[in-house]
């Protein structure tokens, strides 16, 4: 170990030998013990390390519990939850995982179709580009409604298509009036 390298190690990793690179740690410790000049370099870095030790963090209360609550308790529970799942990313992802596993267990065509459809409709990663899928689903009732409406005969409309009948009745009335004044 040379002085240059020892200085570089201290400048990068600080005064605590536990932070020094493992491959060079023993050599650096030996160097510090043998060279009096190393003590001055160590003290320079110690002051900064002491200040950094003051940086304490507040614990993130309840976050771990909240993360756990969003993960289904089991694969079966995830499958049951599917009806109540919205777009919450955790639940969607969990459902997708659960569905993939349940498909492996159940070879039924219906299950495979349902899981494939749900995975397609609610992908684990919801990006704006994926919004067309639920949008497309939402337009289906509208299109069906228009098709039904265009094919049904509504009696009220037929009354307006009988002008010829009205003309005929009017002419007949006038003829009767002329022949029987």
């Amino acid at each position, binding site marked *: 170990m040379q002085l240059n390298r020892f200085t570089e190690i201290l400048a990068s990793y600080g005064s605590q030998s536990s*932070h020094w690179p493992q491959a060079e740690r023993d050599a650096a410790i030996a160097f510090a013990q043998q060279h009096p000049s190393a003590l001055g370099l160590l003290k320079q870095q110690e002051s900064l390390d002491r200040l950094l030790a003051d940086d304490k963090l507040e614990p993130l209360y309840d976050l771990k519990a909240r993360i756990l609550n969003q993960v289904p308790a089991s694969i079966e529970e995830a499958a049951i939850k599917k009806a109540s799942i919205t777009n919450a990313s955790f639940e969607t992802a969990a459902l997708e995982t*659960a569905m993939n596993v349940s498909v492996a267990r159940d070879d039924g065509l219906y299950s495979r179709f349902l899981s494939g459809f749900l995975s397609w409709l609610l992908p684990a990663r919801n990006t704006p580009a994926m919004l067309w899928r639920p949008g497309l689903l939402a337009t289906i009732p509208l299109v069906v409604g228009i098709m039904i409406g265009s094919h049904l005969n509504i009696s009220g409309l037929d009354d307006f298509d009988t002008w010829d009948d009205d003309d005929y009745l009017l002419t007949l009335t006038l003829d009767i009036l002329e022949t029987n004044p």
Partner: protein
Amino acid sequence: MTTDLHEATDRQLVEQIAHGRRDAYEQLLHRQFPAVSRYVQRMLVQAAETEDIVQEVFLRLWTQANRFDPNLAGVSTWLHRIAHNLCIDHLRQHNRLSGATQTVELDGGVEPDNELENTLRKQTVKQALAALPDRQRSAIILCHFQELSNVEAALILDVSIEALESLLARGRRKLRVLLEDPTCS
């Protein structure tokens, strides 16, 4: 089975998570949550989005466990790398939520002097860390606070060991300047 999970390595737990095992997920969350959450807290200087980022890291543990490659890195390194990338993305998007611009608000003379000094000193360290460029701050957090090895930190930052040491040395030099004279940031 529970005993097995307690004795399982992190890598074995990730393998179980990839098969949808919630109990394995819970065990690994219990092990890795403290370190990952501390890293994110320091990177974002306790921004409001800290909890969202931590949550996203562990969401990816659940959804992307099958992508973990034990030949490339350890589980802790992998999770730190996910956290690092999310933090950097967040900081870029929000043009840096810098704690350096925060001011220390003090209530008028209620606290004893030594407590006040402690509060001020802690705030000063936080402000100094926040004033560092993101990659320098990340390097210092990983090596100093998270106590990861230089190899792990270099993997997380996707740099060489030499580049990591350069980031660390520049970061520590700037920290010393900021903490000795906080006005010259």
